[in-house]
Every structure is written in C-alpha cells, then in structure tokens.
C-alpha cells in the first residue's frame, strides 16, 4: 500500500505550522547589530535567520567601476554552508548569483543613488539559516540595514512571497510548502509608491489565481512594513533617550 502523504493544510485550512492562509510567520527584527558596518540589521522570520550589512557610500574598488552620476550599488546574497540540511558549498551557486542580481534590482529603485556619485554602496546579505523565503526576508532586512546606514531612500522596501499549496493560496511559504506546493510568487514592494521592484514566479497559476496571489502578498508586505517601521523607531527612540540622559 502506498504511504499516506502528509498533508500541508488540514481540512480546517490550518497549515502545518499552525498558521492561517494569510498569516505571516513570527518575525523578530533587530537594527544595528554589527559595529563595523555603516548599517546593519537582523531578521528572524520563522526559522529563517538572516543578517544584512551595508558599507558605504565609500570609495569604489576597483576604481574603474565608479559611475560619474551616481553611486554603484553592489549586492551579495550568500548562504552559510550550515544554513541548510545538506551542507552548501560556500562558493556562490548560480542561484545565489541570480538572487544577488534581482535583490540589487529590487533595492536600487528605493535609494537616491544620484546623491553620491563616484562612490559605491556595498550590501551583504548572509543567510545563517534558511527555511523558505530567504530572498524576501533578505530584502526586508537589507532595506533596514540601508536605513540604519543613514542612506536616503524614497521608501523602505519590503518583500514577501505568496503561492499555492494543495490548491489553496497561501502567504509566506515555508521551505516545505514551497517544495511541495504548486506555485511560489516572491515580490518586493515599496508601499508608499505602490511600486513592485522584485517579481518572480515559478509553478503554475491561472490568471485569476495569479491576481489573488499578488493581492495576498501585497497585504502581507504591508503588515511587514509596519514591523519594519516599528523596529527602526525602537532603535532610534533608544538612541535618543541615551543622548538625552
């Protein structure tokens, strides 16, 4: 007899980790966690643990890459070898190269790069533990690290995935849901501008499902945006109190 497959969503619509279809994983954010970086932040989203650090704007190395009219944004998304079940080689994989590119393109529209010609802003995202949705959590935390570095931005960028699992549309997929699910749509968003700056999809969706999935992840993004702002305020209120003492 074939082994009974474990269901990802039970008959009451409760997901395997106890969440409802439109519920984010528990989130913890800290700002300014690394003393050497010009800006840094840390996020835990479910079992994801991700650090982001910003260096710059500073002199470009090598110099010939410098741009005459704006700052050069560079981004490295990298996973620690111990972040996943099977050890990942520390050399950058093709996936990491692609993600570094799309994350850079997701954050670039938010930054006033033209304020800092002939400089570079270097952004490092280190995934310490991965459990699905690391590119999105990486963007959410990287935007906070940029804010912490005092880099002027049009808006914070926030990212969140939605997708389809066992026929149901769900928000913020875990690794298991992504692997067993039918579709995954990661999206990055600047809520004040209504601008979608990262958009990818794999899986299969009809047009109607597709539209609903976008709405779902935009709603999730707006929730995350509140958490982003609260975490920034929490740090700078503490700084202000320190100064006033």
């Amino acid at each position: 007899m074939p082994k009974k497959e474990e269901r990802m969503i039970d008959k009451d619509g409760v997901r395997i980790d106890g969440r409802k279809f439109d519920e984010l994983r528990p989130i913890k954010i800290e700002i300014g966690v690394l003393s050497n970086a010009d800006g840094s932040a840390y996020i835990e989203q479910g079992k994801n643990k991700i650090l982001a650090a910003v260096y710059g704007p500073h002199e470009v190395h090598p110099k010939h890459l410098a741009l005459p009219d704006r700052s050069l944004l560079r981004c490295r998304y990298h996973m620690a070898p111990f972040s996943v079940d099977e050890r990942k080689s520390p050399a950058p994989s093709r996936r990491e190269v692609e993600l570094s590119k799309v994350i850079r393109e997701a954050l670039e529209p938010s930054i006033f790069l033209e304020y800092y010609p002939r400089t570079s802003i270097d952004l490092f995202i280190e995934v310490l533990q991965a459990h699905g949705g690391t590119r999105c959590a990486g963007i959410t935390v990287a935007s906070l690290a940029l804010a912490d570095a005092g880099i002027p931005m049009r808006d914070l960028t926030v990212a969140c995935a939605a997708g389809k699992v066992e026929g149901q549309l769900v928000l913020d997929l875990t690794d298991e849901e992504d692997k067993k699910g039918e579709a995954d749509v990661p999206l990055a968003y600047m809520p004040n501008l209504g601008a979608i700056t990262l958009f990818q999809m794999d899986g299969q969706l009809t047009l109607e499902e597709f539209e609903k999935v976008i709405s779902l992840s935009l709603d999730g993004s707006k929730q995350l945006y509140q958490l982003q702002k609260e975490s920034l305020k929490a740090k700078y209120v503490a700084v202000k109190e320190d100064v006033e003492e």
Partner: protein
Amino acid sequence: MSMIIRVKQKQIAQLMSKGKRLDGRELKEHREIKVEMGVIEKAEGSARVFLGKTEVLVGVKIEVGEPFPDTPNEGVLTVNVELVPLASPTFEPGPPDENAIELARVVDRGIRESKAIDLEKLCLEPGKKVLVVFIDVYVLNHDGNLIDASAIAALAALLNTKMFKYEVEQGEVKVKPGYTPLPMQNYPIAMTFAKINDKLIVDPWLEEEQVMDARLTITIDKDEKICAIQKGGTGYFTKEQILEIANIAKEKAPEIRKLVVKD
C-alpha cells in the same frame, strides 16, 4: 546613465507617447520571428531562432547520468547560456556572468515549471541511472530580448530532438537500434515586456533595452497558465501593469507557439 542614452530615452519615449517605435513597430508587436530546426547534425536536437536581428542557436545533447537524490525517478534538465563574444561588443570571454546565469535560469524555469518534458519518462533505473538533457544556448547576435529568443529556440530544439533508445538490462545501459523523440507534454512561451516612461512595449530590441526602466518576462504554457515570471532592471511595475502584461501575454502566446509547434 550616459548623456547619449538619456537623449535616446527621450526620443524613444516621445515616439512611444504617439504609439510608435524607432523601428516602426506597434507597441505590442514582435519583430519577425524565424525558426530553423535541425541545424546541427551532431546534436540530438537543435534550432536557430531569429528575432529581428537577434540570433540564438540552441543545441540539445543527451547523456546517461545520475539523478538528483531528491528526485530519484526523474531525468535531469540543465540549461546553460553562453554569451559568445562574437555576438556583441559588450560580451567578454570568460565564465558566465550574472546576465548569462539569469538568462539560463529564466529559460530553465519556463521549461521546468511547465513540465514541458516528462522527466519521469527519462528514468532508466530509479536512483541510479537517468537521462540528462543538456540545453546549451549559444547567443550569436545580440540585438535585444535574448530571453524570448532563447526560450523559443530551446523549445524548438527540444521538439526537434531525436535520441537513441536506451534500455537497462541487468544493471547495464544498452542502446537499442532506432531513435525516439523526447517525451514532450507542454509548450511554454516566454514573452518579455519593457517599461519606458511608464509605458509598456513587447519584445524590446537593443536600443529600447538600453533605455528601459524595467522588464518583465511572463511564460505562458499551452493551457494558458502562467508558469514562470522574472522581473529585471532597476525600475518597478505596479500591480495594474503586471496584470495588463499577463493578459497581453496570454493573448499573444498562441501566435508564437504556432511558429514552433507544428501539430
């Protein structure tokens, strides 16, 4: 953005506001697409695709190999892209850069997620021996929209593939006489849109790519489902723009599919 690009952007944007383009096309019109199949005899499958002046050659090679541990019953699909230096003054020799890797992964995603190849039929001995399908994309002339040209060429080359008949006898892979096609079951079509000054165009050519704010590629399968998406570039899209793009892509995909899939 250099001065020249800025001037060009203004010119292109002005034309687009009148519904025109530099090369005379409509905003939602593709360049002429030509598909030639079976152009490389040594490859199991091959195709050359012209998208205007953009030219892409794809070769398919099939080998016996090992499956991935998490999919022991499935053949392996790999897509690689070479941006050959003869194709553009901006391409340099060396290992694939982020543009080549992104292009390969977008083509891969369309084929994989639409389940274009029935990979389970490429399993020879579960967990031990499977067929590995290598799709090598060779860009020969870069005049913009490499994604669509590569995706069409890859699909055409897969449909053109004739491989040996393999069988396993007592743990050994034997080659039987005759040829067999790949087990194809879906026909994904990638369609790329560019956004310039908040207006959308389909199939951007090089001059338009150089000035675009962002691009969005949507891959539509034979059942009109969306099976892969990639946004690129440093601009953004609104939700409304994305839905508009999805609707146009759904409408136009069958026209392009007809050029590759002959029923």
